[in-house]
């Protein structure tokens, strides 16, 4: 049985925004976790930033790279922060 694609919204900030060349991306994907999604984006959007240094936010909350995603989720990949 073919998996139903998930409809997701991804926002990019800082170094990822510059690499992706856009701030917001809406896509349909077979990725089921943020880790799988990032691997897909690395190919489709030439993202070179290493996945092991990223954290992820799902629907404006910090989540895990292995958390299962559902349709409509809003994803942000968070490179190392530098506030203050």
């Amino acid at each position, binding site marked *: 049985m073919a998996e139903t694609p998930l409809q997701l919204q991804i*926002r990019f*900030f*800082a*170094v990822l*925004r510059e690499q992706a060349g856009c701030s917001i991306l809406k896509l349909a994907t077979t990725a089921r976790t943020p880790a799988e999604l990032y691997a897909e984006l690395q190919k489709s959007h030439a993202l070179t*930033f*290493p996945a092991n*240094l990223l954290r992820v*936010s799902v629907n*404006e*909350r*910090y989540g895990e790279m292995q958390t299962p995603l559902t349709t409509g989720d809003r994803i*942000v990949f*968070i*490179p*190392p*922060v*530098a*506030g*203050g």
Partner: protein
Amino acid sequence: MFELTATPIDPADRARRLAAPEAGAAVIFEGRVRNHHLGQPVTHLEYEAFDALAQAEGEAIITETEQLYTGTHVHCVHRTGSLQIGEVAIWIGVASAHRAAGFAACRHVIEEIKRRLPVWKKEHHPDVAAEWVNCTTEAATNLTLSAYHTRHASLPEVGAAGQAKLTAARVLVVGVGGLGCPAALYLTGAGIGQLTLVDGGHVELSNLHRQLLFTLAEVGAPKVLAAAARLRLQHPAIEIKTHQGDLTATNARALVAGHDVVLDCTDNFTSRFILHDACQALGLPLISAAVHRFEGTLDVFQRGTGGCLHCLWAGRTASELEPQENCAGGPVFGPAVGVLGVMQAAETLKLILGLAGASAQQTRLVNLLDGSALTIERLARPDCPVCRRLDQLPAPATAQPSERETIWINDAQLAALGPTAKIIFLLEPGEMAPSTGRSNFLAIPAHDLAALREFVATGPVALSCRHGLRSAALARLLRAEGGPEIYALKAAPDQS
């Protein structure tokens, strides 16, 4: 109050708004744009924020800080957009009744902001391309960390490979008190990658003489939050998880799972048995320590090696054991918990590094009063129900030890053993024998095992000592040698 703003911050205006009649102290931190970074001149900065999460995270940081430092009131505002040299990028003001909590809270807010607020800054240089701070290859390899660990990693027994093992290790510390504080501090310094702290308690003034992660500023704060904040200052890369609550039979296995080594730094037998059973069930090594006044014991429990905690206590239940050794609220010599906690950290590191550690078949007794140390075999009991059937662990409260398995007895039970039953008081070096007027009472040096064995052969014996630790340990030792009629007396004879 937390705010993100794209317009310049006016520090004087912010400071005026911080004034409050109950605040005896106002501590202010301003983070300003600097004209250099890592030896490079900087012309200006650009800040970018993930607004929705930054607002929620900023508010969470302030709520946590006000919970951690009683009586503080925190204001924080963070800039976004393009900032020139000298401009204020972040302004933090803390109003508090007293200075200690104010300074500590202000420091805590900026450290947490730097660690977790989703804000990025791009540095612009006069000659080279602009770059996002912390997102370069140099930041990823982190030269600072190799310098941090150089004196440890240069030990042949550690090395770069060993240091990598420590960085990959996940360690659980249950109990952030006298044992947990020094244990966690040394594990942090060693570069353990992930540390989980479990404790439901709050910092009390009477903790401070031995729980040296905490200061006067944290009195009243949840221990796990105060400890995590202190440990993060110690190591730049440690990941600390906290569980603010007690270990229970319900949550024990879930808390233990996902770790490589577990430290038992609890102060009561109920938690000790629950934690031990969860570790045995999941096959995780448990480094356990307990302290009574000047003395402590250290045990490494590994499933299938040596006796388990139930073997050690001869089937007695937590509730039976509690009165003898519950040290919550009791007197305790600060360095004793310090030494034992650091020994727990040492055993943990050696286990991760694959170095020969303390045997999992022995109990170590350390006495800080006379400086002595004693090692006792901890053998598996062939009839131990826990070692035998790991999948059906009996709840400590329902276990029914036979009289034969009972180590501790009281005066009445001793009298029931007949007229030949003796009390032997174990003397520590320099200690005088207590005078009891009893005919069946005698005192011998604790280290004179040959004399003890002779007495045990002549009839029922109840061992006694000043603190009740050594008597129980030696009674178990002599039983393991085949002396059935040996016990430990519940109270020292001159106190009964």
